């Protein structure tokens, strides 16, 4: 209260309230001001500059020329003026391949996590917490180390090939690493906690009386699953799908380590434009594609989950 400047003056009704309000505003400014400025400059600023750069012309020797130049996108999407840039369907092909790999990763993580979530949700409190601890633990360990482990397991002289060779099941080592499958396996391994947590949250909340009612009323187990369990856990699945798909799509570490030069993803393409080809505007345009997909998915997720909760409110 010592901070109040008006305590010594004649107390007038309303003055005290007003000064409290202004003091709150001052506190809020102190709390949020510096952070907001920091994020505006170093988070929103860079994103804005990236958007601008994607519309500029590449200069000689890696620079940028300040002219409006939509051909970066044209080169990717097919409306390039051949005077400036050549349209090459390879970019769309790589983009679609990345979307496919990301989608398959979502599917794989879901298949791995969904049944386990049901099992863990029904354990006793102590075991439940222990299992959750074991699942979150890898998230805190180094990503690059976890990928390295898979290199050791999958490569030509890796664990799997050595074991198969020594048992005589195969005569020559199999090509396990540097394949699309290796990328999906690596991503699945890395993204398990991302999928498990949201799926688990919705499985744990599942109202089992509805399941029992459905079974009592004559629906078979399969039908109960399709009509009751799956719809009720759908929000968790959707949430997990979004937070696995987004980082999987733009990933360049997993394909760089497990895909080698053979399987290129969109992230590797972006990296190349920045660190090898030195065509920053084109690289920025490629990154904009990833960001657009992310924004569309986020908006769709917000709208759909909003609609779901509205429907749930109406049903009540």
């Amino acid at each position: 209260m010592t901070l109040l400047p008006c305590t010594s003056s004649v107390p007038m009704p309303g003055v005290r309230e007003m000064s409290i309000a202004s003091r709150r505003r001052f506190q809020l400014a102190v709390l949020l001001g510096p952070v907001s400025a920091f994020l505006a400059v170093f988070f929103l600023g860079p994103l804005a500059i990236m958007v601008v750069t994607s519309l500029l012309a590449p200069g000689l020797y890696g620079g940028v020329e300040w002219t409006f130049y939509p051909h970066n996108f044209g080169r990717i999407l097919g409306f390039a003026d051949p005077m400036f840039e050549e349209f090459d369907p390879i970019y769309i092909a790589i983009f679609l391949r990345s979307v496919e790999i990301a989608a398959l990763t979502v599917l794989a993580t879901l298949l791995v996590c969904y049944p386990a979530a049901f099992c863990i949700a029904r354990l006793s409190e102590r075991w439940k917490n222990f299992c959750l601890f074991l699942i979150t633990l890898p998230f805190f360990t180094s990503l690059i180390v976890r990928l390295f482990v898979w290199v050791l397991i999958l490569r030509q002289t890796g664990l799997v090939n050595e074991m198969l060779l020594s048992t005589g099941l195969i005569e020559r080592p199999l090509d396990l690493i540097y394949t699309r499958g290796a990328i999906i396996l690596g991503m699945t391994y890395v993204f398990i906690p991302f999928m498990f947590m949201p799926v688990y949250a919705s499985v744990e909340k599942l109202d089992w009386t509805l399941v029992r009612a459905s079974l009592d009323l004559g629906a078979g187990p399969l039908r109960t699953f399709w009509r009751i369990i799956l719809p009720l856990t759908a929000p968790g699945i959707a949430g997990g799908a979004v937070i696995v798909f987004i980082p999987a799509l733009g990933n360049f570490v997993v394909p760089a380590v497990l895909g080698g030069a053979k399987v290129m993803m969109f992230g590797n393409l972006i990296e190349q434009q920045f660190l090898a080809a030195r065509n920053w505007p084109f690289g920025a345009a490629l990154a904009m594609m990833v960001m657009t997909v992310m924004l569309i998915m986020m908006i769709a997720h917000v709208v759909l989950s909003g609609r779901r909760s509205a429907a749930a409110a109406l049903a009540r």
Partner: protein
Amino acid sequence: MKIARTLFTGSLLAYTGLFFAFIYIPLVVIAVYSFNANPVNMMTWTGFTTEWYAQVLGFKTKVSESALYIESTGQLLQAVWNSLMIAASTTAIATIFGTAIAIGLYRFEFVGQRFYRVVMFMPMLMPDIVLGIALLIFFVNSGIRLGLTTIIIGQCTFLISYVFIVVSARLAGMDRTLEHASADLGANEWMTFRRVVLPQLFPAIVGGALLAFIISMDDLVITYFIAGVDVTTLPMFIFSMLRRGIKPEINAIAVMMLSFSFVVASLGLYLRSRQK
């Protein structure tokens, strides 16, 4: 029906067992084989040795042929030191900023608050590569020399979000009657904050700080783009080793890193479970 149920429960348990095996067997494999003496084929067991650890830690140099691979232990130690320095700085900044923003958004009311909360999730959801190149373009254009400073600033942009989420979850779930009681009993706002709010918030702040520290130590993609040519962090060091080829020393480094993060993460998760 009963048999079917038992079968179903049994297979579900077995599946969950496989699930944990999938997560942990690779880590056990690498831990075991990091003691393998075979310098050429790391997955063929020829005997027990601690040589790789000794080499990484600089107790022995260039004993075997493959020891030449790490040009110098000095480079590795420099990378570890850089990572620790960066993580310490970013953790300090992100913890203060993240806590401030959480208190601002959960103990005050103002127009646009909900929007602000949604925006705070964005740096976390932004794909690494997009944020990495955006920061690279930004720093190069603004003439800031790439190096430790740019890495620290760049990592803070998304680490703030992580601390914010951990601390705000605690703030949202906190019992406010204690704060009201404190105010009723005559404590001023600062006193209430220091004696009532902060002690309750403390585990979340520590948890958020540990999370930020670990993510900072582990960040590869964003750091990779904005590190410039002079600075190498530990994940970057391993990434470049992996790209050049694999030698047993990486095994030892990997196992030491795993152990370190297991200890820190266990501590963090323990603290978080304590506050519930």
